């Protein structure tokens, strides 16, 4: 019984509380349900019981939902929160998210889509069970570096708002480039470095602010590399014998490879070892297995054809479609496939050779 999750529902409508109690008791994880019809009562329960999830109404007498959420965020940062409101107002929604709530649901939607609501609750409770994990809510087991890399690789424009308990940080990304950072009272690169030391939290994407002042001039990869080095140095100093250095080394390696890739302007690189001699290694592409399959096949066909025609050694294979150009070449016993944007200029085979050489070194 001790391991059951505890959910607290706060609403001034007693009938609604009874309805919620009935609905939540059907959850597969069989959580313990607590109800409160005032913020004061709710705070007492949170202080005495180990509540995992607070479901809160917005419109309440004395202390309203937003005030309650602000108090909870400050005093109980680990508590998951859901707003359940009848107010169909976009401003309330954004204010609630700004306070770091995990979900905002309308009461009407909850009744209509109770199954989906229950699934969201279960998912949140599941995340709460893994409190000890590092990672960011929304994208589990991903570090902040991964999230930033994903945003920048997709060349998106957004403002990332990252919350860690009472702390709030912001990153301004414009067309895949880091424009500004704000964290713990600092701005620019210093803020970025401080932010990367956060191991957990939650984040949300806010609309891009293209007119925001640019304070960071360095490339994202350079920033990530510097931050990773700083983190490694700090980690190495504090825990020399732990397993973290290896993890950090791999991370640094990945960032270094990524910086090589973007410096040359390539989209992706895939290194394919001979069949049965390990897994393909890639950066910048998701469909590793299918692309690796084609790479092996194309290399085999090209070599076979070259031998038959006595056309000399294979230099490389190139291909293109409307989206990108690819160059395939061999180095050592590996075959590499490098993707380039269609508008990439210069001697691509030569650039590919350079990239492959530095990747493989």
């Amino acid at each position, binding site marked *: 019984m001790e391991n059951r999750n505890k959910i607290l529902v706060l609403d001034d409508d007693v009938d609604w509380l009874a309805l919620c109690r009935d609905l939540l008791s059907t959850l597969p994880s069989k959580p313990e349900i607590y109800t409160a019809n005032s913020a004061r009562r709710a705070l007492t329960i949170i202080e005495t019981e180990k509540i995992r999830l607070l479901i809160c109404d917005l419109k309440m007498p004395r202390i309203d939902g937003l005030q309650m959420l602000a108090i909870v965020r400050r005093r109980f940062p680990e508590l998951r929160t859901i707003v359940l409101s009848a107010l169909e107002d976009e401003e309330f929604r954004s204010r609630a998210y700004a306070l770091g709530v995990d979900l905002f649901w309308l009461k009407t939607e909850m009744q209509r889509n109770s199954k989906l609501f229950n699934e969201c609750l279960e998912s949140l409770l599941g995340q709460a069970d893994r409190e000890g994990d590092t990672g960011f809510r929304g994208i589990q087991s991903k570090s902040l570096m991964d999230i930033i890399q994903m945003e920048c690789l997709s060349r998106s424009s957004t403002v990332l708002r990252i919350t860690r308990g009472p702390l709030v940080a912001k990153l301004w990304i414009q067309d895949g480039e880091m424009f500004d950072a704000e964290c713990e009272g600092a701005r620019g690169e210093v803020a970025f470095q401080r932010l990367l030391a956060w191991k957990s939290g939650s984040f949300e994407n806010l609309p891009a602010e293209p007119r925001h002042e640019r304070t960071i001039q360095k490339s994202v990869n350079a920033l990530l590399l510097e931050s990773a080095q700083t983190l490694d140095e700090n980690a190495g100093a504090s825990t020399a014998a732990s397993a973290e250095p290896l993890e950090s080394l791999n991370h640094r390696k990945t960032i270094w490879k990524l910086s090589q890739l973007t410096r040359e302007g390539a989209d992706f690189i895939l290194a394919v070892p001979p069949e049965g001699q390990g897994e393909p290694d890639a950066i910048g592409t998701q*469909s590793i297995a*299918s*692309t690796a*399959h*084609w790479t092996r*096949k*194309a290399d085999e*066909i*090209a070599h*076979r*054809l*070259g031998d*038959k*025609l*006595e*056309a*000399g*050694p*294979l*230099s*490389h*294979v*190139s*291909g*293109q*479609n*409307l989206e990108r150009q*690819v160059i395939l070449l061999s180095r050592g016993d590996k075959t590499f496939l490098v993707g380039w944007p269609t508008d990439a200029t210069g*001697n691509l*085979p030569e650039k590919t050779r350079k990239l492959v050489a530095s990747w493989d070194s």
Partner: protein
Amino acid sequence: MGFLKRLFGGLAAVQQLPAGTITVDRDGRIIASTVSSAYPKNLLQTIAKDVLELLREARASQMPLAEVSLHFGSLRITARELRGGAIIFLLPQTALLPTPNSPRP
């Protein structure tokens, strides 16, 4: 004088490189060709088959290619996809051919 011929005569059969264009349908049949008729037909057929396989495999791997080029030391094969078939350009590479870095006239 027939000494060298006697020694190497039967060994050094240098194969000619194909030059020209061939058009193949989706089944690998050669529809049109500007390659010398002296060039072995079976080798042209091999080129057609292998190039189509390359394009087909790319499609199957979710990476459809409109054009593919195989760059060998002395031959470049460029194929453009044509509704399942292909038009294939065969260009022997000689020292007189301009390289990508050579200045334009």
